[in-house]
């Protein structure tokens, strides 16, 4: 970025000042901030089931992060930090409401095992009627508001822990080590949970959108 402009000491100083500002520059980038806010909003709404509560939580998380803007070394660090704040707020709100997220995820683990057994036979091959089909024209689905309604309904059907981890990964775009740290789980635990979430989601989307109402030829 900083090029030839001669390395006189005055200019070096100015460049350093620039670089220091650059660290927090993404916090002043309205386009980036808005995109981040949207991602966080999706996550919070789906966790809390309440758009107003979610908006407040996201707002507070972003403000909290802006206060410590200096300590970030890039967008990934900022995102992780904002998300950590948001996650704590959501946990507080859920607790205050008396919902026990952990109990919920314990309940679901039995159910999850049964799930996969329904999809595969004893040798681990797809059962005939569970075999994934070809999805026609997924590009146009994302421009259809009816599709998004189906998508949200499918997300809603995921067990709590699956939904949480899946959204951390796919909406907030956190990487494995960040999610494992935030959720206090092992990598293999995360992998198993994401696998199940994806199995469920793809099945739900296929049944309710990509194949809904179409008697498709099964060659």
């Amino acid at each position, binding site marked *: 970025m900083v090029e030839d402009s001669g390395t006189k000491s005055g200019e070096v100083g100015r460049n350093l000042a620039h670089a220091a500002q650059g660290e927090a520059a993404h916090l002043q980038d309205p386009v980036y901030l808005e995109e981040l806010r949207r991602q966080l909003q999706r996550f919070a709404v789906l966790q809390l089931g309440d758009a107003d509560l979610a908006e407040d939580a996201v707002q507070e998380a972003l403000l909290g992060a802006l206060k410590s803007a200096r300590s970030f070394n890039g967008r990934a660090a900022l995102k992780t930090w904002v998300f950590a704040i948001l996650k704590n707020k959501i946990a507080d709100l859920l607790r205050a409401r008396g919902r026990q997220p952990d109990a919920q995820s314990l309940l679901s683990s039995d159910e999850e095992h049964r799930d996969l057994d329904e999809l595969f036979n004893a040798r681990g091959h797809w059962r005939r009627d569970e075999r994934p089909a*070809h999805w026609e024209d997924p590009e146009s689905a994302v421009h259809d508001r009816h599709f998004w309604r189906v998508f949200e309904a499918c997300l809603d059907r995921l067990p709590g822990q699956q939904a949480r981890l899946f959204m951390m990964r796919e909406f907030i775009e956190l990487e494995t080590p960040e999610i494992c740290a935030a959720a206090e789980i092992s990598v293999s635990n995360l992998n198993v949970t994401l*696998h199940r979430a994806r199995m469920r989601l793809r099945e739900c989307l296929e049944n309710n959108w990509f194949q809904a109402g179409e008697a498709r030829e099964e060659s």
Partner: protein
Amino acid sequence: MKNCREITRLLSEAQERELSLSERMGLRMHLAMCRGCRNFAEQMATLRKICRAYARRDEGNSGRE
């Protein structure tokens, strides 16, 4: 030889990490003869695109066309 259940797990993990050479070879062999898993593999990529589009969608547009 991996079965479909194991293959779907690998395909899911491929969304988080780069697979090893032997994993990729096992995958390729299975996909060559299993249409269900081929479709599943495509759907993993599609699902990611859908999620990115969803998270970035403008809230204000969600009620409109």
